[in-house]
């Protein structure tokens, strides 16, 4: 699947959301690939009306949804992180393994180190 513009990325993200069973999505790709746009598509599918913008600075943003299963979306940006331990340091652990929470992690490749020992 190749997206040629932000609109297509949004549509693809919505379709993906409808078929995906995952509670944690890791997005990998360089600056300007469309990771935040993809997350915005997921947010639309969840019925979030608020603006979902880049969490690079605060690292994590939490949105309440209108979805029946997922009550909240946790949007993480690991751009500035270097290991899974730092996901714990920012308080993400609290949101793992919760049936009512969908987690999207941008720059997931940055926190691959120790991820499975630390968080799953």
């Amino acid at each position: 699947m190749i997206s040629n513009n932000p609109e297509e990325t949004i549509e693809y993200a919505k379709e993906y959301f409808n078929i995906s069973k995952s509670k944690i999505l890791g997005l990998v790709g360089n600056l300007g690939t469309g990771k935040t746009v993809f997350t915005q598509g997921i947010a639309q599918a969840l019925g979030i009306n608020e603006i979902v913008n880049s969490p690079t600075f605060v690292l994590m943003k939490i949105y309440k949804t209108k979805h029946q299963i997922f009550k909240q979306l946790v949007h993480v940006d690991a751009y500035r992180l270097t290991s899974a331990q730092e996901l714990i340091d920012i308080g993400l652990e609290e949101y793992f393994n919760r049936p009512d929470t969908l987690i999207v992690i941008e720059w997931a490749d940055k926190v691959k180190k120790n991820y499975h020992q630390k968080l799953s």
Partner: protein
Amino acid sequence: MLILGIETSCDETAASLIEVDDKKIKIINNLVLSQIDIHKKYGGIVPEVAARKHVEAIIPVIAGSIGNTKPDLISVTQGPGLITSLQVGLQTAKTLSYARHIPLIGINHLEAHLWSFKLTNYVKIKLPALGLIVSGGHTELLLIKKNSKYELIGRTRDDAVGEAFDKVAKLLNLGYPGGPKISKQALKGKPDKIELPKPMIDSPDLDFSFSGLKTAVKYLIKEQPKTNINDLCASFEKAITDVLITKTLKAAIKYKTKSIIIGGGVSANNRLREEFKTKTSKSKYDFYYPALEHTGDNAAMVAYTGYLNKKTASLKMYTKLTALPNMKLV
């Protein structure tokens, strides 16, 4: 009134003591211990490192600020910011408030940036006013209504302005923090040389978007690797300032505001300040901007914002104040 301000929302550990009443303000000291050098090698802030450094620095910085004096109020940044960093300042403030029986107040970091110009220009402004907060984490347009209530009327839909500067600086291998690096290159370049998009400049709302501009730079240097970096930086800076100023002036007309205020780290940008000065004087708006040393995170602005909100301060506040990483300004 003697106020101690404490600020640890991001990568600065800061404390400041100010003396303020309705007629005058005096900054007794304004200490900032920056972690920029520490974070430079990572190309940005690392939260765990930030929190650890805050822990090391917070007591010496506060001790250096207050010495043996007992302030009348402690004002601390409650949010928005990095949760781990915020907690260091907040816990220290709460402990100090409890131990020395000093009233405490938690304030919003954005509100502090908004009023940072008052630290050197203690004037009463005409309302309604517009506030543009531009920094690494924020691009927000606020309306300050006649009753001094705030309304968020515009914000970024993706990247913050300072973030766009940082990320473009990274794409161009210029280093961190990106703003000053790009501005330095831009001085040597021609701002009209390269055509870059000015996202949402004509959109009917008051929101911003800077992600597409970052992507445009990315593809430009990929497709035309010989592009002159100075011209690119100058054109990028111009695209950003044009969007910010156009949207702010549009909002000023819409809400019939009398004053325009800028604040936050990116308000140190020379092009932004100068263009704003020119445009606002033509359109007869009063324009306020902070002194350069108060554009970045500092605790004097936090102390002053505590003064503005002093009615909500209390001795018991230490029992209920918690860090609010996504704190909204209302």
